[in-house]
C-alpha cells in the first residue's frame, strides 16, 4: 500500500493512489477527496466518479457451459510498479485536463461477484476536465497498470486475457 501526494512538477493537484485488499465506501472517499483541497477553494465545480466491480456475466457462453458460474476474481499486482504506473496515469490526465484533486483506489486479492474493484474520483473546476480525466484514467490504467485478474469459476479457474477493446479504448485518446 502506498500514498502519493502532490508530487507533480507542473501542477498543484493532489493525487492520491492506493492499492488495497480492503473494500471502500464511495461517500467516505468523496469526503476524503473534498478534504484534499482547501475548504475555501471555490474553484471546484465538478466531481466525477467511476466504480468498477466484479461482473457475474461471462460474455462467452461456451465458457459458462464448460466452467460453470463465475464466483470471484483473484487480482494480483506488481507492488511498487503498480503505484508508479497509476501515478503516471493521473499525471498524464492532469496535464491534459487540469484538475484539483483525484483519488484512485484499486483492490487486489479475492473479490467475489458484485464487489467493487476500482474507484476513480476526480475534482476539477469544470465538468469537462472532471469527466474526461476520470474516463482517461480508467481507460489508461486498464492497459498500463500491472494488475492481473484470475477468474475463479465453479469448476475451474483461468487467467483473464487482455481485451482488444481495452487497447482500442486507449487509442481513441491519442487522436
Amino acid at each position: 500500500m502506498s500514498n502519493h501526494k502532490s508530487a507533480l512538477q507542473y501542477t498543484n493537484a493532489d493525487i492520491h493512489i492506493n492499492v488495497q485488499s480492503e473494500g471502500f465506501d464511495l461517500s467516505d472517499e468523496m469526503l476524503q477527496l473534498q478534504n484534499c483541497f482547501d475548504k475555501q477553494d471555490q474553484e471546484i465545480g465538478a466531481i466525477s466518479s467511476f466504480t468498477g466491480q466484479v461482473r457475474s456475466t461471462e460474455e462467452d457462453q461456451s465458457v459458462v457451459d464448460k466452467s460453470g458460474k463465475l464466483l470471484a476474481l483473484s487480482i494480483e499486482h506488481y507492488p511498487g510498479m503498480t503505484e508508479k504506473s497509476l501515478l503516471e496515469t493521473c499525471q498524464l490526465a492532469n496535464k491534459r485536463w487540469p484538475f484539483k484533486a483525484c483519488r484512485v483506489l484499486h483492490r487486489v486479492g479475492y473479490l467475489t461477484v458484485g464487489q467493487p474493484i476500482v474507484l476513480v474520483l476526480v475534482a476539477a473546476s469544470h465538468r469537462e476536465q472532471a469527466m474526461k480525466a476520470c474516463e482517461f484514467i480508467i481507460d489508461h490504467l486498464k492497459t498500463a497498470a500491472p494488475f492481473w485478474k484470475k477468474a475463479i469459476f465453479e469448476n475451474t479457474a483461468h487467467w483473464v486475457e487482455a481485451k482488444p477493446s481495452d487497447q482500442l479504448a486507449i487509442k481513441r485518446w491519442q487522436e
Partner: protein
Amino acid sequence: MIKLLFFARIKERLGKSEMTIDFVENQSLQTLTQELIKKHGDEWQILLEPDTVFSCNQRVVDRDHIVADGDEVAYFPPVTGG
C-alpha cells in the same frame, strides 16, 4: 546480481515468483532470457512468448534493453486490471 520477478500465469508456469542471477556485462534482456531457457528447460520458453511484457526497474522496456548490475527485471503477461 540481477533480481528477476515473475507474475500471473508466468509465475504459475515456472513455479516461482522471484530469483537472482549473476550479472553479465553488456547483456540484453533477450540474451539473458535465452540463457535462462537454456539452463532451465523448455517450460521457460513462456518468457519469450510474443505477448510477454518485460520491465526493468519497474518500467516497461524493449527486449534489446541492456541490463545493469543490481537491476530488477520482471516478466509478465499483458495487464488486465480495472
